[in-house]
Structures are given as C-alpha cells and as structure tokens.
C-alpha cells in the first residue's frame, strides 16, 4: 500500500507547464532552436525568451496538486501505521533470533566449562591417562598428532617417566620403557641425559 501510493504520487503533473521553442542564431552564424520550459511557479521568465518570436509547442494545464499530496500523505500514513503495528512482531522476531544464537553459544560454553572443571578436579595421573586415551584415539583416527615431537609431548613423556621412577624402576629401564629405546645407543644416552637434567630442575 505504502509503496504503491508512493510510486503513484510520482506520476501525474504537479504544475502547469508550457514549452516554448525559439529560433536563435549562435556565435558562428548557425541557426538553432532553443527550448524553454516554463512552470507555473517560476519567479521570472527565463533570460532570452521573447514571446513575439517564440512558438508554444506544448502545454500541460491540468495539474494534480492536491491529489498528489493526498496520495503521498496516504502512503506516509500507511507506512507509519505498518511500522507502528508491526513493531512488536518485529521485536519478537528479533528476540527469537537472538535467543536461538544465545542458546547455541551458551550450550557450547557450558560444555566447555564442564570440561574445564573436570580437568581441574582430575589428579595428575588421571590427566596423564586422559592424554594417553586422546593419543590412542588420534592414532585410531590415523592422525599424525603423536608423530610430532612438540614441546608439550616431550614434557608429558618426562612426567610419565617420573611416575615410573616413583614406582621404583631404574633410570635406564624407565627411559627404555617410555621412549622405546634400547640401552647403549647414542639416542638412549642423549634422552637419559635430558631426563636427568629435567629431574634436577
């Protein structure tokens, strides 16, 4: 309704208009026809127009001032009414969308906080078990997570080895068990040195 009335009010003439054509000669002595479009509400006639020489070629005397303005006001009124009537519905719709997004993010955050809480409550040995489970899962999935010797993995192995030490194993067997090396090889000695350093720290 509002859009239709708006476009309808664009169409009909607002003012009475006259079109005059006048033969002129320019600076290079060439004749041309100059067009003047006069509207009803012009304050003064345009410069250069003499009605003795000019010819009126078109006119619009039927104007639609009040009709156009009434249609325009109708369009504005219907638009404003639609906005007022639909305000609650629009806000409800917006609130529904917001609630959905908040629900999704809140459930994610709740799960994350639960996991964090559980992680904090776990003892060090249980954490280690959990890490091993995750690693096993990653191996099952075919990932290369275990292959990468990152800093975290190395320190984790040190922790694992320190638990074995607490159980009463010797240094060589602990290193051989955790890193899977054989005694006497240079890699075994190297890792053993590192492990001793880590223990002293």
């Amino acid at each position, binding site marked *: 309704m*509002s*859009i239709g009335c*708006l*476009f309808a*009010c*664009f*169409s*009909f*003439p*607002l*003012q009475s*208009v006259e*079109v005059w054509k006048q033969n002129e000669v320019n600076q290079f002595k060439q004749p041309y026809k100059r*067009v003047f*479009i006069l*509207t009803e*509400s*012009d*304050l003064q006639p345009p410069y250069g127009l003499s009605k003795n020489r000019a010819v009126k*070629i*078109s006119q*619009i005397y039927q104007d639609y*001032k009040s009709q*156009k*303005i009434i249609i*325009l*006001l109708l*369009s*504005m009124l219907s*638009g*404003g009414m*639609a*906005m007022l009537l*639909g*305000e609650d*519905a*629009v806000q409800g*719709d*917006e609130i529904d969308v917001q609630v959905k997004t908040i629900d999704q993010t809140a459930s994610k955050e709740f799960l994350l906080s639960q996991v964090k809480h559980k992680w904090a409550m776990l003892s060090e040995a249980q954490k280690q078990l959990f890490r091993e489970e995750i690693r096993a899962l990653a191996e099952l999935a075919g990932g290369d997570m275990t292959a990468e010797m990152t800093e975290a993995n190395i320190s984790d192995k040190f922790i694992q080895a320190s638990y074995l030490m607490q159980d009463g194993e010797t240094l060589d067997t602990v290193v051989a068990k955790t890193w899977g090396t054989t005694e006497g090889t240079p890699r075994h000695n190297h890792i053993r040195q590192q492990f001793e350093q880590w223990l002293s720290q």
Partner: protein
Amino acid sequence: MLRHLKNINELVLYAGFSCLVAFLTRLNPVFFFPVLMLRLSILSYCIYVISYTEGNKVIARIISAAVVVGWIGGYWDLIEVYLQWDSSEIIKNIMLILVIPIVFFALYMQWNHGKNAARR
C-alpha cells in the same frame, strides 16, 4: 523477513517526507537552494556515518536512500517533460552527476595511493 518489511516501510515514510519537501519546493522555488543544501548535507553526513563511523549504519542507509528516492520522485513529472522536449539538458545533468564523483574518486585514489597497501 519482518525486519526487511519494517525497513521498507521506514524507507517509504522518509522518502514520502523527502518527496513532500520536493513538491513544496517546486511550488515555492524560493526554497530551492536551502532545500538543496539540506539534502546534500544529510546525504554527506549519512555517507560519513556509513563509511567512517560505527554508528547505526542501517538507518543511515535508509535515510540516504530515502533522500535520493524522494528527490528523483518529487521531480519526476518535470523530468518527463524535459526528456520529451529538451533531453540534452537532462543528459548534460546526468553526465555531470556521473563525472563529478568519478573525478573526486580519482583524486582521492591518487591521494590515498599505497596507504592501504602499506597497512597490510
């Protein structure tokens, strides 16, 4: 969907106001220049809000679109007369409207040359 409907109605409301102002300006041409200045200032402020600030961009877009729609729509019957009898005038104006922003954009790009690239 409802939001778009509400935005369209808002646009029509503001465009109707702009169109009404255009009608009154055509009936009283004394106010042509002040209304032109008002339109240009509203448009430039809306463009500033859209491109440089973090204000309400939706309402700025709606108002700028409404100003343009009301401006063209308010003069549409006169534009038809001009198109029929003196189309060179309209073409001249359209060329000016198209060329002036292109010139200013080219100047802006020259002045702004390399600044955005350096930031990346």
